[in-house]
């Protein structure tokens, strides 16, 4: 799969907003869960 540079990659054939909106929220939500677990683990050990 060749994207012809980064601008082509981010554009996603005109669907950039949908594709990146889906991926950003997914990995953002998973990151928030990890952060909350790290925080909770530290609090329970203390």
């Amino acid at each position, binding site marked *: *799969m060749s994207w012809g540079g980064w601008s082509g990659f981010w554009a*996603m054939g005109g669907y950039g907003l949908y594709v990146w909106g889906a991926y950003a929220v997914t990995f953002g939500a998973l990151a928030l*869960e990890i952060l909350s*677990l790290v925080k909770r683990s530290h609090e329970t050990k203390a």
Partner: protein
Amino acid sequence: MSATIKWFWYASPQTFLPLAGTMARACWAGAALLALAGLYVGFFVAPTDAQQGEAYRIIFIHVPAAWMSMFLYLVMAGWAALGLAFHTRLSSMMASALAPTGALFTFIALWTGALWGRPTWGTYWVWDARLTSELILLFLYLGFMALQAAIDDPRRADRAGALLAIVGAVNVPIIYYSVQWWNTLHQGASVSLAKAPSMAAAMFAGMILMALAFWCYSIAAALTRVRCIILERR
């Protein structure tokens, strides 16, 4: 020592604690590696879809998240039922530890579905059997968490939550078969055990890698959370 005795040994929260920590660390690492491989295949190996263009690339998170949302609910209801039947504390703790991660994957399935529906169907949301039953699944997870949080006594909270989880499990086959039972806008299953996948091999590989990454992630998150629950209830 026989394997049978080992199982009962680990059914005690205190002895399970260090094992859960070791398994969680391995699963966190596995999830990260599998997700990197899945994203690489999904964005740099898998070809453009002939009908949907690049919009289809949402499939690599949408389908695995939807699978996890249903599967985690059944595992959660199974642990809750074990806890209800045998009064094993660790089973109920596992059910409580799975709920937030299951709710998260349900939200992700709905969110990515909305962003996929807009370019392909022309709408973010439709009250179709598949979408509606998946939304009910999110409410079941949130209801389970709210109910447990509302009851102070942990044993009563476990029992009440277990009843809700078991009754709500009826919704999972409804989600799964909704595309066959009703005439839905949502397409049918793209992968089934009975026949070969109806998509390019690289697309299928990317989806399976992301599904395995989400599996590892869910196990790691649930084990990390159950450790906190064990320590908090001590």
